[in-house]
């Protein structure tokens, strides 16, 4: 019984630390005061309206969405065939290839960001948006490969032999038989990659520049000089958005099946 009480205590503690900050953000978002404070002084939606009317936030939101969608799509074009090759074939150096493809998750974001900055921005002199896009493609590729890969792992590849024996070329087989059977994995991979790109700070921090910034970065610089609850309102919007996407994915596809 005593052990049980201790257990309950820790569970409560975890919840407090997990949800506490979020609760504070949510309550401050609806505050009527000009400075972020807790407990809130009154109820108002002015900070939401302020967030939506801020040109910086709206532009950077646009850039964030654009980068996230483009990066995810490009990563899928590279990642899905890579996942297919990795799960379908056994070749020398397969394990090494797998590790390289997954390394962007393992290498600290700051290190990656700095490396991209040195290489893409300074060495290759690419424009800000292009290097930002390339950086994001690389950080989301592992999610695509991981998620699509595990759904390919569960596929009986004899259907591929069957399709070819019936007259389909390799390419047709891939699009008509393989891909339709991993759609749920592909959608789940898209969502995960999208969220990861959209929320990314460490890599974006290095790659954003004059005129081109992502939403999380502009939020970061906003809080450096402002103390009003606009950020809370924005955070609530982002939270709701992320939760909504994850909820849809979980309900329709069951993300736990893919993110093993």
């Amino acid at each position, binding site marked *: 019984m005593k052990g049980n009480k201790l257990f309950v205590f820790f569970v409560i503690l975890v919840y407090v630390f997990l949800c506490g900050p979020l609760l504070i953000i949510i309550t401050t978002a609806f505050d009527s005061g000009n400075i972020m404070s807790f407990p809130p002084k009154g109820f108002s939606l002015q900070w939401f309206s302020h967030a939506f009317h801020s040109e910086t936030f709206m532009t950077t939101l646009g850039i964030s969405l654009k980068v996230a969608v483009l990066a995810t799509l490009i990563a899928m074009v590279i990642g899905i065939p890579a996942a297919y090759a990795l799960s379908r074939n056994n070749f020398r150096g397969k394990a090494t290839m797998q590790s390289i493809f997954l390394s962007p998750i393992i290498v600290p974001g700051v290190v990656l960001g700095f490396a991209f900055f040195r290489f893409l921005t300074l060495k290759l002199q690419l424009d800000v948006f292009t290097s930002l896009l390339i950086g994001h493609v690389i950080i989301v590729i592992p999610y695509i490969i991981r998620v699509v890969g595990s759904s390919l792992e569960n596929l009986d590849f004899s*259907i591929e*032999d069957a399709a*070819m024996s*019936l*007259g*389909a070329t390799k390419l047709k087989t891939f699009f008509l038989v393989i891909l339709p059977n991993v759609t749920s994995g592909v959608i789940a991979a898209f969502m995960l990659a999208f969220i990861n790109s959209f929320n990314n700070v460490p890599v974006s921090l290095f790659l954003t520049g004059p005129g081109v910034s992502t939403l999380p970065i502009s939020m970061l610089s906003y809080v450096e000089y402002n103390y009003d609850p606009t950020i809370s309102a924005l955070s609530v919007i982002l939270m709701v958005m992320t939760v909504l996407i994850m909820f849809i994915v979980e309900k329709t596809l069951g993300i736990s099946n893919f993110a093993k």
Partner: protein
Amino acid sequence: MALINLKDITVSYDGKSDILKKLNLDIEKGQFVSLLGPSGCGKTTTLRVIAGFIETKAGDFIFDGNNYTKVAVHKRNFGLVFQSYALFPHMSVFDNVAFGLKMRKTTKEELRKAVEAILEVVDLKAFSKRYPKELSGGQRQRVALARALVIKPDLLLLDEPLSNLDAKLRLKMRVEIKKLQQKLGITTLFVTHDQEECFSISDKVAVMNKGVVEQYDSPETIYSHPKTEFVARFIGFENFITLKKAENGRFLTDDGISLHISEDQNFADMEAVSYGTIRPDDIELLSAETSQTSNVIEGNIEIRTFVGKDYQYSVDTKLGSMLVNSSKDQIYHQGDRVKLHLPSNKLIIIKKTKEE
């Protein structure tokens, strides 16, 4: 000329050890041929070479006079049925069967007619809108068969298609497959490890071992006259005797017992020292008092086991332990003196398979 001609086919997966070693096989048009052998003998590899999934290291695959060795899988027009059926999970029965015709750009009307006709043949017309996961094993099997047949293949390849079915259904399906094959007159290659299954439906059987065909004959010939020790053991011969060739179709055992063997066997290409074999069913178990002397050896009953139709006795003789099946009419007991008659037409000379 044979429709299919496999010439010295060699296949290696790792570049070192060969899975198929200079395999040769001819298949006549319209025949039902089986590849029989234990797992790892290369039978599925052979089928996959013919289907085009495996590249050969050496050798040629000639189909209808054309060299098919390098022809891509999708251009071969061979129908395949897999052990796992390999139905497309995201397509209905109709679409599964129609897939091959769609690849051939058949017109919509023709496609519908052809698919409906073949579904009628396999008795699945009512199921055309179902999905594979809504079907039973036997139904999936028939869809796989219909899908392979609807393209009017030049060759039908069956890779252990019955092994996932229960015993009763397996019997039924094998009759259906044979019926279909005869009706359509389609050349068929069937891979199996089940000798009863393959003997029952094949025109010819190729028994495979370690990447080569050990014997290629009609099921009857293989059953009664295996050529090698491996084949004999695989199809149920249990008793093996080392024999030396003597005069007039007589052979001597190591102990000098003289045995007569019918001359209808070809002794010409056999070596001086050889191997004789006989099925437990073919040995006659006689009482010790019998007056018969030709091809008779003495022994003691070691053990008696019940094998359903008969009793099986292990008899200790000068030639070693012999397994004999004998009817229930005359029961012998452990330690009884008996005589064994090895009929001269049932004793088969075989080539000893070298141990590697």
